[in-house]
């Protein structure tokens, strides 16, 4: 069974009307695949039954939202990106008395812990605040705990070394059964909060905003709106970091920004 476009639209309208979740400006191909996947996973005999469940069962709604958004993430994904942050961006941030960083769409937090490790190694963590937001409260709960599957540590450790890390990666966590429990001092400066990029506003000013692999799920107009939100939330000379296939080019804010080398990092001009 494959869901039809009109059915996707029906569900999106329900989510909007009943719960205020607005997915209408998301890229449709991904949403549709996620909904089909959920129909199979949760063994719904028909679209109508899925729709009924979403409309009547709040607990299921949570699962639905969690599953139709993509939460896949990694520590030190794209090591050259982290290397650039380590070698160039943190040098600039070090000059501020208080460093404010926003991870928008942080998912389960692997990216935030990676950043905390960089900050700690640069001796900046003590004067940093890492705001980590996502629309999905469940992933934030996982991020808050800082417990990640142990099987991934080999890959993360390799990424870490490629990013220029010189410490023993395993010093940052304690292995317990099949989990890696990250040190509490890393999460001490993290602030987790739900924030919906579609409907919520700017809530602070930052020197660095990371929003990686989130915009790919939005259509062009929504991408532009969200980039404007970031522009409003970024200090002059602050940095904006996107995913490896995302770009500021073609957006209305691009004139105020200069791309840094070949990385997906842009610096805001002074005025």
């Amino acid at each position, binding site marked *: 069974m494959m869901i039809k476009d009109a059915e996707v639209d029906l569900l999106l309208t329900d989510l909007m009307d009943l719960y205020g979740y607005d997915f209408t400006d998301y*890229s449709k*191909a991904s949403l549709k*695949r996620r909904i089909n996947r959920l129909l199979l996973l949760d063994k719904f005999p028909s679209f109508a039954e899925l729709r009924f469940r979403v409309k009547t069962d709040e607990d299921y709604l949570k699962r639905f939202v969690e599953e139709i958004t*993509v939460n896949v993430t990694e520590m030190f994904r794209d090591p050259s990106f982290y290397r650039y942050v380590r070698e160039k961006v943190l040098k600039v941030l070090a000059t501020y008395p208080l460093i404010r960083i926003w991870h928008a769409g942080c998912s389960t937090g692997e990216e935030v812990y990676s950043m905390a490790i960089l900050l700690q190694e640069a001796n900046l963590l003590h004067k940093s605040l890492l705001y980590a937001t996502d629309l999905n409260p469940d992933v934030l709960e996982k991020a808050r705990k800082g417990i990640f599957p142990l099987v991934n540590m080999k890959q993360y450790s390799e990424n870490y070394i490629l990013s220029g890390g010189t410490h023993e990666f395993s010093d940052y966590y304690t292995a317990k059964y099949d989990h890696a429990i990250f040190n509490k001092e890393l999460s001490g400066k993290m602030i987790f909060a739900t924030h919906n990029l579609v409907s919520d506003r700017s809530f602070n000013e930052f020197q660095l905003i990371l929003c990686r692999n989130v*915009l790919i*799920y939005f259509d*062009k107009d929504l991408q532009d709106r969200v980039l404007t939100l970031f522009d409003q939330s970024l200090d002059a000379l602050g940095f904006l970091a996107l995913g490896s*296939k*995302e770009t500021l080019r073609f957006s209305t804010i691009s004139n105020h920004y200069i791309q840094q080398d070949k990385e997906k990092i842009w610096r805001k001009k002074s005025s």
Partner: protein
Amino acid sequence: MEKEIFMNKYELLIIGGSAGGLEVLLEVLPQLRTDLDYAVVLVMHRRGGDSLLTGLLSDKTKLAVKEAEEKEAIRPGVIYIAPADYHLLIENDKTFSLDYSEKIHYSRPAIDASFETAAEAYGPLLAGVLLSGANADGAEGLLQIKQAGGLTIVQDPDEASVSYMPQQAIEKNAADKILTTRQIIGLLNELNHSIKPGNR
């Protein structure tokens, strides 16, 4: 019953391959018409080595070869390559979206993800080719192309250096045609709109 094929209607050709598939492409590309008037999307399994594939393949043809970009509009006569480590999805408005969701059949990009979304977007205007590989990816997607009215071609498992992937598609009954590399080249050139049925 042999499916009736109206050669000059296809707007998109999508090719998927895994182990042994690249060698086929290296043979096919130089022999494709250079006035190709449909778009081509290549979804190849590979490890890392992001931009290498684009360079390697663009050396083999005068046609424009580029990595598919996020929200880019699909244009005829261009060969697009699915970037490493993302799924490449095709939207109904004939643009690309990238997706960083779970691997499918241990693969990202997954052939199934691109085939399935292309089938939705292009329906009977899509032709799909599945090449050599040691993976079950692509068979389900090819079946969906067929079910949406598109044309499906599978590399002859006898010729493929790894027969598993084509074989999977054949077992699913997803193949309209089972062809050798030579025959695939011939057919792809005939799909060009510039060739009028009478001139064949």
